[in-house]
């Protein structure tokens, strides 16, 4: 589970990048139907999260995972997974 501090960082990225209001950023909120993001936004979201959390998205590995993200909670889970992988394999 992503720590609150990191969840807040995700929310800040969403608010800054996509000019969203905080009240829409509930864990169950859909990135698409509730936040109004689309396929281009999801590309920009990944770039912004890479910058914020200093991880690297590898298209061949992560594309399916990203496509499966629907809610903010899913997004937290994805970031947690990337972080775990980075810790397990720090040279990657």
């Amino acid at each position, binding site marked *: 589970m992503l720590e609150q501090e990191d969840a807040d960082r995700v929310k800040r990225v969403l608010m800054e990048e*996509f*000019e969203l209001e905080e009240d829409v950023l509930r864990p169950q909120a859909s990135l698409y139907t509730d936040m*109004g993001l689309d396929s*281009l*936004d999801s*590309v*920009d979201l990944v*770039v912004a999260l*890479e*910058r914020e959390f200093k991880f690297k998205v590898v298209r061949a590995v992560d594309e399916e995972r990203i496509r499966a993200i629907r809610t903010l909670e899913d997004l937290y889970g994805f970031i947690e997974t990337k972080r775990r992988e980075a810790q397990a394999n720090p040279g990657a």
Partner: protein
Amino acid sequence: MGTHVQIPLRRIVITGVGAISPFGQGVESLLTGIRDGRSAVVDLSAEWSNKIPALTCLVGAPLPEPLDPKQIERKFRRSMGPTAMMAALAAREAFNQAGLEGETLASGRVGVSFASTTGSTASLEQSFLHYFQKNFTESLGSSAFFQIMSHTCAANLAHFFGIRGRVVSPDSACASAAQAIGLGFEAIRYGLQDAMLCGGADELHAVVTGCFDLVHASSCRYNDHPDRTPRPFDAGRDGTVCGEGAGALVLESEASARARGARILAEVAGFDTVADGGHLAQPLSDSITRCLHNALDNAGVLPEGIGYVNAHGTGTVLGDAAESQAVVDVFGPQRVAMSSLKGHIGHTLGASAALETIVSLDMLTHGYLAPTRNLTEVAADCVGPDHVTTLRYQRFDAFVKNCFAFGGINTVLVVKRYEDA
């Protein structure tokens, strides 16, 4: 027996205008700046000398203050560079005046003909910075291409307003808006569309002025006195000064405008565009003459029916002389009043024909002729037309808008006061 079918030509009127100019946002600020005889040209040496140390022209006509990007919803704004953003705001003003919205725009009978020299020089610069740092696809936003692509204005406008008719982008550098208005005019005239959002836009950037520098077409002797340049048709002219902005005009069939009860500002009566076919950067007066004759024929207006020529008049040595010669060839010596607005707002490039047509419409409506700012001594090679050097109150019924571009592209629009048939 042939199968030739004569298509009845339709009359085309202007029902809305919008502007972002070196005098600010909105048509009113543009008109006020021109009526007051002000210069929008300013010293940009601090910013530009760092970017291009060898740049000789250190003045330009930027927007007086940055646009508030929040005027456009993020969903639409993300794919717009400064050029497309200016186009969108100018277009919104034009549609508001015309009273066109919603279902009408989505009907498929309304299109877009809007162009610029490039998509966005600032966005292009950002992209190449990422490219040279070798992280182009890793860190550049997903919408960079949509800001840079040559038809960024036309495509973004269609998206912004939900327009579903034809969308064309006749990008032809400084003639972009003139060709865009012309193609929009033709689309309506031949019954292919009922209304067209037409115009052009371009943004100011050191690289843009640098391109004029490269061919010695930029002004470099007045860096200490920005308000004294450019000097169209003047003995002391030494080149043009780049500006930025966007001009939008709603062209509409007379029948459509009347059916809606829209206020008709004027009639677009004729258009022509020809190529020099001889040189990419050296204007030919014969070619301009041919374009003027063709446009007048197209409009069914005789030269004596034209009361004013709104000149291309950029302040370059070769261009101003060629245009003056052509105007004399077509209209006769001292027969037609002519002025250029570039002494006020610089050369707004792809936006110029639209912005300057909008000001000319105001002159047509209110019966005045704005002078060529900075024209204090007509150059020997520009003698011939009746140069307007001070504000005149003079009624006229039709004007010609000249617009030329690198590449040997010449374009002429004929606009007249609207009268019921």
